[in-house]
């Protein structure tokens, strides 16, 4: 296959430098505004972090526009985002509390940051008791419950399940490990496992409603390993810690590395299962042109979430679980797979559809990652200069 035909935009149709810069200009303005939050940083270390983050984010967007490839560049920022989130989150916890452990006193004071994975667990109790079963605060902080709900509603309306590939601060860890090796060591995963996240979702929603506590956070969340975990004070908290670490090693590190798939995200995460339904209320989807398809099955092999198979290709679309990462689109040398706007014709204008998708998607990714990337850079510079992150 000629290299020029890679991706959906052949080299001959790729925009020139000037047109690319023009297309990137709105994103540069938006990212200056979002990364600085309206106030340019004054401290030299923060200025350096701001400039580095701005350059990184806009270089990635430039390359997305210029090359016509989405996932190749998205994944770099997405993985960086997850790593910087962990650095920033843990260092902030240690600075504020002196430890990654959350004590019961922290909980009754509402000092636990709210995470989007809790959302499905809160719905039944919120409907019946008008309360949120989480030890956080409703408003007033960056990670307050109401603010996180707004972020989730906005991103679900904008991207549907694209949330999992463009917004989620944990997904990049799974994705990073899935890209460690060139070839998959485990090639065949039984498609029946696709139902597991729905079973986990059902279990945690019911268990949380009955116990009036976020069951997944208490017992099953692998990401507790790299964020915060309950202070170890009893046999129960020891068991919880063992479960968190085991699930992290198995689902976020080992299995993604061996299968080259996002195992935690696609086969376990209840938020991912819940988020699948938001693809129904979202204007963007990923479509397949069966006439252009040469049945090379590269898309099936590369999809990190098992969202494309012979059956969905025949129907001309991806499964409801599609995270709109763009990996299959980049992999399809025939240009048979493309982002699409519901209601518009399938033929032609695929690059317009793609650009209309990546603008909002990238606003979410750049804004969400920007704060954490800047903070991680600041902490790293401080660590190098002073020997302490704080």
């Amino acid at each position, binding site marked *: 296959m000629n290299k020029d035909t890679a991706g959906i935009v052949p080299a001959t149709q790729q925009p020139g430098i000037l047109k690319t810069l023009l297309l990137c200009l709105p994103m540069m303005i938006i990212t200056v505004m979002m990364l600085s939050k309206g106030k340019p940083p004054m401290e030299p270390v923060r200025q350096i972090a701001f400039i580095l983050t701005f350059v990184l984010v806009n270089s990635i967007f430039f390359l997305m526009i210029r090359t016509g490839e989405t996932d190749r560049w998205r994944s770099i920022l997405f993985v960086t985002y997850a790593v910087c989130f962990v650095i920033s989150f843990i260092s902030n916890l240690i600075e504020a509390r002196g430890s990654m452990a959350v004590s019961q006193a922290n909980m009754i004071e509402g000092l636990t940051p709210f995470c989007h994975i809790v959302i499905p667990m809160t719905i039944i109790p919120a409907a019946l008791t008008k309360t949120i079963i989480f030890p*956080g605060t409703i408003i007033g902080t960056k990670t307050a419950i109401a603010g996180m709900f707004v972020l989730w509603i906005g991103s679900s309306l904008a991207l549907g399940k694209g949330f999992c590939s463009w917004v989620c601060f944990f997904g990049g860890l799974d994705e990073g490990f899935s890209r460690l090796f060139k070839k998959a060591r485990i090639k065949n995963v039984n498609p029946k496992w696709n139902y597991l996240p729905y079973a986990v979702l059902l279990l945690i929603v019911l268990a949380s409603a009955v116990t009036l506590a976020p069951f997944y956070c208490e017992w099953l969340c692998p990401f507790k390993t790299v964020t915060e975990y309950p202070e170890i004070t009893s046999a129960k908290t020891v068991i919880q810690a063992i479960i968190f670490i085991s699930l992290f090693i198995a689902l976020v590190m080992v299995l993604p590395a061996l299968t080259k798939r996002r195992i935690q995200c696609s086969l376990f995460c209840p938020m991912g299962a819940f988020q699948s339904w938001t693809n129904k209320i979202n204007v963007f989807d990923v479509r397949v042109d069966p006439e252009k398809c040469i049945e090379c099955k590269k898309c099936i092999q590369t999809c990190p979430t098992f969202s494309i198979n012979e059956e969905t290709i025949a129907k001309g679309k991806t499964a409801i679980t599609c995270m709109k990462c763009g990996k299959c689109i980049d992999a399809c040398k025939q240009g048979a797979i493309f982002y699409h706007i519901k209601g518009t014709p399938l033929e032609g204008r695929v690059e317009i559809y793609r650009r209309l998708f990546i603008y909002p998607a990238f606003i*979410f990714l750049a804004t969400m990652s920007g704060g954490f990337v800047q903070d991680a850079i600041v902490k790293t510079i401080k660590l190098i200069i002073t020997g302490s992150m704080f």
Partner: protein
Amino acid sequence: MRKLKSLLGYIWAVAVIIIALATFLGQDYFGRALAAATGITVNPRYSGGEIMKTVDHAKYKTAMHRPVFDALIGQTKEGFIQINWAPAAGLPQVISEGLDYNSDGKEDFIVTLNTATGKATLASSNPAVLGIDKSYHLKNGWAVRVLLKQP
């Protein structure tokens, strides 16, 4: 019809860019509006529930929350009541306070807390008061949860 659907699709797709910007620029505003519109609060199992009574001891204050028996539907047989003391700077080494949680004019229990060790003890004069659940060292004071059963 096809053209109209196509036009609506494009309008919706462009509107998504506005939604993305509004999500971040209006996160605080929409968050407050969402909280106000739904009237939602943190579950009392975590927050301790609304403060029912405050006692001013000049150097520190005692805040007694409402008894919490909240379940998903109805009430549980057993619950707790949370008592907070703040600010930390004004607290004596040992706090000993008699409290009437059901407002019947009779003292229901005396809770004693050593603010140096966090050890809390309870002397109950009401059979519905079961004992101490836990004491908590807060940022600016202390809290104790006392276990209760439905009278």
